[in-house]
Structures are given as structure tokens and as C-alpha cells.
């Protein structure tokens, strides 16, 4: 057990190092001199003199070897220092924490609702394979992965804000502000999740112990709820929780369309204004969120189910 935990943690640390190096090197993908880039962005396009460039390099430590720069950058980040935003001059971590709440609210609400709906829909579809409810479930999930969420969001705004005047298309804080963004998110969320619940349930319903339970003459409801569901629960919960890691993906387009004052919209704004420290921090933090959720899920899975420890 301890060995498995140690192995898994070492693996996560290696991935974290790789991801951090990738985020760090974003600044160096820019062809030419990063110091010149930093100067150009901050001066609004006025080219630097050679002397100014030299000073800036010394100031930022850009004249040192790449790996040493990476080490310095990483050791600062481990202390929670992501540098200052070039736009506002305030620490990046402050700017992000200011906007974290709005994003988290939107996410938790959408995630909970989509998890509940997917769960019920997936089980109903599996129990009624090839009947009406199953077709509805499959159609929803096919549409959900095919309709881009920004287009779905715009249609919601067009129908419910512009035409029917029911809900506002932007704004934050009041209950009515949450309805359209959450709906948009839930729609794309249930498409993949309900499909997974359905597939998992179908697989378990084909197992021998289910056939044995059927042969015993147990009612369908008891078989599904007592025998199948209990075994399906672990893979379903695992899948749901790893999808937490993808929270940033769904949020980017939805926050932009609904002008939501969250972290993802701030990221897009920073990309447009070439605010490199914020862009680096966002790439790194969104990956860290994904990696840590996966690690926690894996470890708790190993605690619950001993088979996992030996398999991998």
C-alpha cells in the first residue's frame, strides 16, 4: 500500500515538473529575445535601446542559463510568488484569488446539477436499453458533444434574453444571473457523463451475478438498485471526479460569452494584452488542479478497492 502511494506521488511530482517547465518555456517559444518581448509589451511597442535591453536582462536574470532561470522561477512559485501582472502591477496570485470565487460558484453549481442529471439519465437509459428513454439519452449526449458550448450559450441568450426577456445575458451576483451560464454548462456536462453512466451500468448488468440474481427471480428494481448500482458507483464517482479537472475547459468559453467575472475570462483578457505572468500562472495552475484531483482520486480509490494497489 505504502509503496503504491509513494509510486503514485513520485509520478505526480514528475508530471508537475514537466508541466511547470512547459509553462515556464512559454515565454521562450517566442522567437528571439524574451527581454525584448517584455520591453515591447510594457513600453507599448517602443523598441528598446541596447543599453535598456541589457539592464532589463540583468534585472530579470535573463542573462543566466535557461535551467538556472527555470530553477529561480520554480522556487519562487513554490513560495506562492507568480510575479506581478504586467497589466495591473499587482501580484498574479492576488488577481487570480480575487476572481476565484465567481468561477468556483459557477463550476460547483453546474457540476452538481450535471452530475445528478447524468446519474439518473444514465441509469434509466441502461435499464431501458433501446427504448425511448435510451434514445433520448443518446441523442442528448451526441448533441452535447457536437454543439460547441459557446454557440449553445449564444442561442440561450438569443432565446431567453433577447427574445423572451426572461433572464439577463450578463451580470453576476443575483440568482437570475446564474441560470443561463449554468444551463449552458450542464448541457455540455451531461453529454459525456450520462454516456459513461449508461455504459458502466450496461457492462455490469451483463455480469454473471446479475444473471444469477435474475434467475433467482428478484425484481428488476432490486437488481438494479442493490446489485448493479453498488458496483457501478466506484467507476462512476471516479469518472465524475476526474472530470472536475476539466473545469477550466468548459469555463473558458462560457465565462467569455456571459462576461462572467471569473478566472478564465481574466486569462483570455491576459492573452490579449500579452500579460505573460498571468498566462503562465493560469496554464500551470489549471494543470496542477487536474493533476492533484487525479492523484487524490487514485489514492482514495486504492484505499477503497485493494485490487487497484496490485494491478498497476
Amino acid at each position, binding site marked *: 500500500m505504502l509503496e503504491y502511494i509513494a509510486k503514485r506521488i513520485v509520478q505526480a511530482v514528475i508530471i508537475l515538473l514537466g508541466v511547470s517547465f512547459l509553462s515556464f518555456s512559454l515565454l521562450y517559444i517566442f522567437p528571439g529575445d524574451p527581454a525584448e518581448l517584455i520591453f515591447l509589451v510594457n513600453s507599448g511597442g517602443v523598441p528598446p535601446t541596447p543599453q535598456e535591453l541589457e539592464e532589463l536582462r540583468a534585472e530579470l536574470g535573463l542573462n543566466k542559463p535557461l535551467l538556472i532561470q527555470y530553477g529561480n522561477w520554480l522556487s519562487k512559485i513554490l513560495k506562492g510568488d507568480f510575479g506581478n501582472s504586467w497589466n495591473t502591477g499587482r501580484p498574479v496570485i492576488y488577481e487570480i484569488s480575487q476572481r476565484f470565487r465567481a468561477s468556483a460558484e459557477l463550476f460547483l453549481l453546474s457540476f452538481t446539477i450535471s452530475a445528478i442529471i447524468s446519474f439518473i439519465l444514465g441509469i434509466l437509459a441502461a435499464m431501458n436499453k433501446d427504448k425511448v428513454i435510451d434514445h433520448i439519452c443518446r441523442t442528448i449526449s451526441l448533441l452535447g458533444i457536437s454543439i460547441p458550448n459557446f454557440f449553445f450559450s449564444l442561442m440561450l441568450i438569443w432565446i431567453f434574453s433577447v427574445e423572451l426577456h426572461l433572464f439577463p445575458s450578463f451580470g453576476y451576483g443575483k440568482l437570475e444571473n446564474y441560470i443561463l451560464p449554468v444551463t449552458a454548462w450542464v448541457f455540455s456536462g451531461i453529454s459525456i457523463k450520462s454516456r459513461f453512466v449508461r455504459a458502466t451500468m450496461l457492462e455490469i448488468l451483463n455480469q454473471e451475478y446479475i444473471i444469477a440474481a435474475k434467475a433467482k427471480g428478484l425484481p428488476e428494481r432490486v437488481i438494479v438498485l442493490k446489485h448493479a448500482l453498488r458496483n457501478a458507483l466506484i467507476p462512476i464517482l471516479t469518472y465524475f471526479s476526474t472530470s472536475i*479537472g476539466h473545469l477550466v475547459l468548459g469555463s473558458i468559453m462560457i465565462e467569455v460569452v456571459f462576461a462572467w467575472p471569473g478566472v478564465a475570462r481574466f486569462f483570455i483578457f491576459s*492573452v490579449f494584452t500579452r500579460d505573460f505572468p498571468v498566462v503562465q500562472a493560469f496554464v500551470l495552475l489549471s494543470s496542477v488542479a487536474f493533476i492533484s484531483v487525479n492523484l487524490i482520486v487514485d489514492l482514495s480509490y486504492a484505499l477503497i478497492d485493494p485490487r487497484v494497489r496490485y494491478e498497476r
Partner: protein
Amino acid sequence: MNKGLFIIGVVVFAGVFAEFIAKDPYRVDMSNRLLSPSLEHFFGTDQLGRDLFSRVVYGARTSLFLAVSITIISMIFGSLFGAVSGYFGGIIDDVFGRIIDIFLSIPDLVLNIALVGILSLSYGTSPLIIIFSIAFTNWVSYARIVRGSVLSIKEHEFVLAAKAIGASNLYILRKHIIPNIIGPVIVLATLNVGNVIIAISSLGFLGLGIQPPTPEWGEILNSGKNYLETAPWIMLFPGFAIAVTVLGFNIFGEGLRDVLDVKKEIIE
């Protein structure tokens, strides 16, 4: 599956023969701006009086060209990467496997947006930058699947037998490994085209992708969002075009998966 193939056929036809189907998508006509759909303009006109039907038809060419380029590049690179990693194993697999893990841990769209934003600063936004930025994250799903398949295939006895009679690595790869992984890769590629089209249009919608006046579905949607009250068709038609095209690739891909009998767990 046939429905999917039909949709793909229509979109490919529109993209290839745009000149014969549509009018000039660049022609500005300020006296006819924001016209609603009519026989003269099937999809109406946009904020510059350009014929929206023509822009959507030419948009198919843009999206397909980009999506197919990105899919082919990621497929070749990712498959090679995964095959080398899985086949040679040992230290090579340790290193390559970790690289795959790293790329799987970064949310794709976040890195796509960051890359396009940074690269366009020096090169301006070009199709090449969009292809590179999306392929940069997209290859990894091919690498993961091919690596997994190769790892399991090379344990089979026929590979051992080939080795025993002195077959070279290249021969084994060509004769035994590739024929066995081609099915999953084709299914993945078909389903992948849909995701890539969504990624391209997302960048376009954010204003980071293909720049106007070049017709691209995401870019048209982006300008349409400002005219929801007066001209919702500017947003609706390119949106439907994306949704229907992606739907076509998804239906076709899922059909292929069943026909080629690729296990669901491998590709979901």
C-alpha cells in the same frame, strides 16, 4: 453511420466546390447590410452586407482544411511517438510515457489559447500558427492509444515468433504492429476531426483564430454575437454549420468504431 457519411460528404462538397455554389464571400455592400434570409441571400447578409450563405460555404473550406491538416499531423506524429515508446519499452518508454502523461495533464484549450496568443505576437495570426498550436496538444491522444495497443500486441506469440526467426524491428512494426493499430487510429481520427473543428472555431470565436475578412465559422459567430437583436441569423447559420459538421464526424466515427470492432474503453 450513413447519415454521418452523408453530412461529411455535403460539407466536403461545399468546401471543395465553393466557387460554383456560392458568391464572392468578400464583397462588401453597405446598402444591403443585415438583410434577413431571402431567395436573394439564403442566409441573409452580415454587418458589412456580405452574403452570409457564401461566407458559411467558404467557411467549410477553411475549417476542413485546418481540421484535416491538424488531424493528419497529430495522427502521424502521435502514432509514431506512441509506437516507438510502446515497442522499444525500457528507458525509452519511461521517458516517452512521462511526456505523454505531461501532455495529458494540461487542459488542451488553455495551452492552445496561450500558444496562439504568444506566437501571433511575432508572426501575426496565420493558419500555420493555428495548425501548430492545436496539433501541439492534439497528438497526445494518438500517442496514448498507440502506445497502449503496441504494449499489448508485442506480448502476443506471433510477434515473439517473428523475432525468433530473426525479423527486424522495422519488419515487425510494418507487418505485425501497424496492421493491428490501424483500426483504433482511424476511429480516433474520425472522432478527432470533430473536436478539432470545435477547437478551431473556439479560437475564431475568441478573436484569436483565423482573422477577418477570411470566412471562418467561429469568426462569423464572433461578429454575429453583437447583432443578436437585429440579425440573429449571423450567429445561427455558422453555429449550425459547426454543430452539423461535428455531428457528422461523430456519427460516422461511432459507426466506424462498431464496424471495426474497436473496444469502447480504448476510445471514448
